[in-house]
């Protein structure tokens, strides 16, 4: 079964469509990255899948069910770590579980397990402003994964981190996603990251009226050694190919749009 199926989706803010007639399928358990010129509508697409925006036309199915509003099957990781500033790390991680009305004892146990998994057990009673960027990211991940979603949507989750933390987090995110058997859709503007983490890279065309232009298969099996993958000649060829297609898309946009 497909975890995600998008058919002829059109989404617009006001009159001009951001996405038009966009279709995409993601098989269950696979890791797909979405790349495209900035401003082409990647965030819009993710927000629509998450049920935060309603489409003008077309359908979205998650695990066979039509999307109309936020779904418990979806975990959404934003670029900014939107942790509640007035809640401790543990309370933040517990949020999704509490919204589902789970018994307190189960919530406490699950929160502790997740804090241990992401290495934040010692910071359970800290407030978000007391954490580093990487720690907030891990807290966010625990918060999103604790209620056991089936598909993880990520909108440039590593964009604000420095290179070292990012490399470590990428590898760990991939491990967690594989361990949990999650389907993942990652939006990124880092082509290397897209290739090294995913099975498929989907390239979006330049907006407005963006759609999926092409899908590239990444031929490396899991579990992956990210370093080895980056050294592989196939990786280089793939990167070059996606890059040239992307540049073609970018050049179709005005310079102003690119700067934006």
């Amino acid at each position, binding site marked *: 079964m497909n975890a995600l199926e998008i058919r002829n989706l059109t989404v617009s803010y006001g009159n001009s469509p951001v996405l038009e007639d966009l279709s995409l399928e993601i098989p269950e358990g696979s890791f797909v990255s979405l790349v495209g*010129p900035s401003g082409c509508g990647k965030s819009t697409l993710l927000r629509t899948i998450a049920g*935060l925006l309603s489409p003008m036309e077309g359908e979205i199915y998650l695990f066979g069910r039509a999307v109309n509003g936020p779904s418990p099957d979806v975990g959404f990781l934003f670029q900014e770590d*939107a942790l509640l500033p007035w809640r401790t790390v543990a309370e933040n991680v517990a949020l999704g579980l509490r919204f589902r009305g789970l018994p307190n004892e189960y919530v406490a146990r699950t929160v502790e397990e997740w804090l241990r*998994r992401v290495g934040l057990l010692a910071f359970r009673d800290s407030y978000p*402003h007391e954490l580093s960027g990487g720690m907030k990211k*891990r807290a966010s991940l625990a918060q999103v994964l604790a209620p056991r979603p089936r598909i993880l949507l990520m909108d440039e989750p590593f964009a604000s981190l420095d290179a070292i933390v990012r490399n470590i987090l990428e590898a760990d995110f991939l491990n967690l996603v594989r361990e949990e058997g999650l389907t993942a859709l990652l939006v990124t503007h880092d082509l*290397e990251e897209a290739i090294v983490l995913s099975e498929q890279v989907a390239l979006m065309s330049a907006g407005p009226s963006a759609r999926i232009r092409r899908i590239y298969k990444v031929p490396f099996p899991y579990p992956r050694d990210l*370093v080895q993958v980056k050294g592989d000649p196939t990786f280089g060829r793939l990167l070059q190919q996606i890059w040239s297609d992307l540049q073609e898309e970018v050049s179709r946009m005005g310079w102003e749009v690119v700067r934006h």
Partner: protein
Amino acid sequence: MRRALALVFFLLVWEGASRMGWVNPLFAPPPTRIATVLFELLASAQTWAHFWTTMLEALGGLVIGVVAGSLLGLAASVVRPVADLLEPAMALLNAIPRIVLAPLFVIWFGIGIASKIALSFLLVAVVIFFAVYSGIREVDPRLVDRILTLGGRRMDLVREVYLPSLAAAWLFGGLKVATGFAFTGAVVGEFVASSRGLGYLLSFAQSTYNASLTMALIVLVVSVVLGIFSGFERLERRVFRWKPALRQKQTTGLRDLLARKRQRTIPAMAARISGRSQPGPEKPAWAWILKIAERPTIRRSEFPQVPLPRLSNHEVPRCTCQGWP
């Protein structure tokens, strides 16, 4: 402590100046004289009747004003037409010095406490309205998305996002200002027309050119307001433990910064002079970070401005989820 000493010094100078006749004791009576008057005031049952009248007016206006201002602010931020109706009216009320309405209120509500409560109420409600209205409208939309995607419902949104934002707006934006306004409203209302209250005593003291009584009354009013403020501050510290600014307050002084800088640089300079490196563990746990930092950094492709990135095959430390560095 330093401020208390400064105050004591100031009072001593004033006392001396007044006693030596450098300033006219009729205008600026010595602090000891004011203190004596204040104690006499506090000892008399009559004063307390006036005191509680003013307290009743101010706190009554404050409570009703906070409740009404909050409800209106809430309504305006939830129901669009209410906002269209209220915002211009409130903006107008905010722009004018509302205190000029005092005589009108006396005509409407008489010289009893009702007119003073009305004045306090009006002063307070407008401030609180704007604090709540903008507090709710400026709620971080990302937090709303966060709650919704985690499966939160409308009630969860209210409890987890709107109420905490509202509390912040209340306590930081409005409550202290509103308290000041509530007492302003009560006392000024009593100036205009009344037969009771601290404002009435003040206008009596003024009409008899009794400077020491006037100052004693001012001290009394100011200490009440400051007492209420300190209560709010204690509440703030309790409620806003999550706020970064409140916690770091003590460490941001210039003197602290200088002290810390000195601490850091002196051992470093000593080490440089003696030609020895600073003492430390033989192989620090974080040595691997340095090892990575020494190598050329891994190029990241940030399109579209950056040209095609060179391929990288540098070693990245593998790390399981257990062993975050």
